[in-house]
């Protein structure tokens, strides 16, 4: 899903390649790009599940306004992944309600 070379913008300017964890698995992305961009590039669309209806949510506005893309980042819930820059070794987790533990399911990590 990455654009290799753009007809107007050329080759996208990116920070250095970094690894991060998504629900325990190792993913790769570029430093300083939004976490959400790295996830989208890796094919991850679901960022969280709502607390009452357990509905999936992902990127919606991509500019930090709507809060649909919030996830648990390095243990902190409700982080807007569309405006939070990616860092080496970051732990990113799908958010269930406001925790990393799905209702009645097993945990990829605890708060």
């Amino acid at each position, binding site marked *: *899903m*990455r*654009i290799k*070379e*753009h*007809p*107007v*913008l050329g080759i*996208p300017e*990116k920070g250095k390649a970094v690894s991060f964890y998504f629900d325990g698995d190792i993913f790769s992305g570029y430093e300083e*790009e*939004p976490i959400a*961009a790295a996830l*989208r*590039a890796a094919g991850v*669309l*679901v*960022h969280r599940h709502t607390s009452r209806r357990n*509905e*999936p*949510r*992902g*990127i*919606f*506005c*991509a*500019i*930090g*306004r709507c809060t*649909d893309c919030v996830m648990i980042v390095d243990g902190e819930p409700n982080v807007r992944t*569309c*405006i939070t*820059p990616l860092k080496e070794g970051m732990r990113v987790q799908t958010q269930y309600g406001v925790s990393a533990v799905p209702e009645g399911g097993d945990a990829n990590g605890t708060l």
Partner: protein
Amino acid sequence: MEHYDLAVVGAGPAGLSAAIEAAGAGMGVVVFDENAKPGGQLFKQIHKFFGSKEHKAKTRGFQIGRELLEEARAVGVKAELNSAVVAVYGNRELAVSQGEKIKRVKSDAIIIATGASENMTPFEGWTLPGVIGAGAAQTLMNLHGVMPGKRVLMLGSGNVGLVVSYQLLQAGCQVVAVADIARTIGGYGVHASKIARCGVPFYLSHTIIKAQGDGKVENVIIGETDAKRELIPGTERCFEADTVCVAVGLSPMSQLLGQAGCRMVNEPQKGGFVPKVNEYGETDIKGIYAAGDVSGIEEASAAMIEGRISGAAAANAAGFMPDGEFKARFEECETSLAQLRRGMFAPGRKGAEQSETDEGIPLSRALLSKGYIDENELSAFPGFRDCSALSETYPVIECTQNIPCNPCQDVCPKGCIHVGNDITALPVLNPKASCSACGMCVAACSGQAIFLVQPHYEPGYALVTIPYEFFPLPQKGDKGTALSRSGEALCPAQVVDVRDAKALDNTRLLSIKVPSSHLNRARFFVKGDFANG
């Protein structure tokens, strides 16, 4: 408490322009923006802007953004980023949220330039991952180099929907359809034509019924609506798509002004609640101004001029700019703004049913409903002439709506194209001038509506030069297929020249050889054998 001569809220086109103007006059100016980078939405705008030279026409939005930042730096504008202004008080005090802290700032004048937010329309499945705002698509692909999806359905045919659809194609995505409940395309016809010739179908009088899929968007169903905007049963149509892009308009983000106590009015023509302002953008609270989309949705070009006016007015009111200088500056800006606010898409004519151009030429109905002009409608327009009999190259200008724009006239070294002082007038071809085939008009036309045609390139063949902004770039000698204005495969075609130069600013010129009978139809090129589809 910190104290400034002027505090500007928002570092987009309007806010930066205001700050530059005021700081240039000697004011101590601070600009607050909640984002990590300045520029607002300008850095996502990768198309060439409309207008005339003074509006930075034919310059791409992100380039205008860079120029504004340089100007701001040069005049000493102080920018505080990651700084959300959470309150503005009538006594011209601001509360600014920075990290975990909130600081209070006092300013003699305040210019609010917070811009707009995207409207949304709820439908079944609209919360599914894969349903995104058109702005989100721009952010992902144009700022971060990531495709928002592979197959996208665009909801909304205003300029945002059209421009973002084109940008999606440039990013390598497929646009499966542009759907709009309106009966006619809302944005510029030239923007629609750019995607129609790539084969993107338009569905006007169509509404979205639902987006569905297992945990994410997998397909989208739209259906036709009647005159009352009710769904006509049996017209449902399903598209395989992983993304729905919502482009259903913008609303002014005017909350801070309302909260400060400024008089607000609901003006649907301007996009919603806006402050009541005078000709300088000043609200009914002295010293508090509004500039750009926050005071009414328009193009960024207009926002920049509004910013200049408010910045100059604030400088004048505080004694930094003499009356005479301010008057001259204001008049210059007003003239420039008036030029942009003319024509078929002028703020006052938004949504009005129009049947002919300012010249009295009937509008192309096909353009309004399908996104491309019918060949037989073209001859009515002054930019078109059928010169099959001519031996030389000549430009064909498929510009059929009154849009404020005149780079075609400016760049032609031979005087072939005339727009005149009223920049919304349709370009007229001068039959006496002779075209040097330099192609500058093809690249300069922000609507990509100009083509060069050489009727007798080789016996039986004509040469058509088209603007081309996609990768992979076809190469000289490549064989492929010429597409019509509707994106339909017309005939075999061969690339005989590809021109790329700094002056063309990434709008490459592709010259394709087609059978002479197709010289008035061939408007796009794809690689791949004609016979094998």
